[in-house]
């Protein structure tokens, strides 16, 4: 075997990793390989001690950004802002929840006004000084409380409205799951604004 084997190993180990993550893996594994060669291991043994590349890839994907995650971290385009930045589904859910509750409990238009106010709050977080992990946690906590509340109201009133509204919470959950994964992997100083939210 020769360095082609190392290249094959690296190709497998960096599969679906972001460009930066893959470059990092290539550098550290190449260093490891060189050190092993200096320690008198032959080319085959220097690759063999690395073990299964697929297993390494699984481990790497738990700690380094994947291609899809790197796209989410990048500066959001306007459509990403709408779909992934927490700017659309939450305000919509709050509004729908507010309307449901107002009708169910006969509370009148004031509740719709409150819902509209909360929409504005969740629509505007990029303008709020949410730029530390603790402030981000507090904001996300508030977001989750509102989410659960709106979900409960939605289910309570679901028999009167199309069930397709459930797609909004699904988008919310998917996005939160991806962002939580990125927050675990990325050091706080590298977080873009929308990752705090």
């Amino acid at each position, binding site marked *: 075997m020769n360095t082609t084997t190392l290249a094959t190993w690296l190709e497998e180990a960096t599969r679906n990793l972001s460009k930066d993550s893959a470059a990092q893996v290539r550098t550290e594994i190449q260093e*490891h390989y060189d*050190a092993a060669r200096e320690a008198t291991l032959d080319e085959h043994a220097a690759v063999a001690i690395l*073990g299964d590349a697929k297993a390494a890839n699984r481990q790497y994907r738990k700690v380094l950004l994947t291609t899809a995650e790197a796209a989410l971290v990048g500066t959001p385009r306007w459509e990403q802002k709408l779909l992934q930045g927490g700017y659309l589904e939450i305000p919509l859910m709050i509004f729908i929840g507010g309307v449901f509750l107002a009708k169910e409990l006969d509370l009148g238009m004031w509740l719709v006004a409150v819902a509209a106010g909360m929409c504005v709050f969740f629509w505007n977080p990029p303008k709020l000084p949410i730029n530390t992990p603790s402030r981000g946690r507090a904001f996300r906590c508030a977001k989750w409380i509102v989410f659960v509340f709106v979900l409960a109201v939605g289910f309570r009133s679901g028999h009167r409205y199309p069930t397709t509204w459930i797609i909004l919470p699904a988008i919310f959950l998917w996005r939160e799951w991806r962002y939580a994964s990125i927050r675990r992997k990325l050091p706080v100083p590298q977080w873009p604004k929308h990752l705090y939210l």
Partner: protein
Amino acid sequence: MNFRGTLPTLILEALEKEPSHGYRIAQRIKERSQGVLDFKEGTLYPALHKLQAEELVESYEGVENGRPRRYYRITKSGRGVLAKNRAEWREMSRAVTLILGEA
């Protein structure tokens, strides 16, 4: 021997005395266990990245034999975690020995 879950603690132990690079960390773990703990070295770096994200180790660029190398050193909180894990391991080892008896 399978030592799943203990690799981060063994890495912290290997870095306790002095900073080191990945290959040397792997060799130190194998040597100190007299070859009993043999692991695939490709999984060492994901563990190191996780420790770095948890701020238990930090890395910096160094040079060895004219080659650039990434060195890792244990942080203050890493030493705290190592001491805690070591105490827990001794306690568990003592308890298991009480049950299974001395070898």
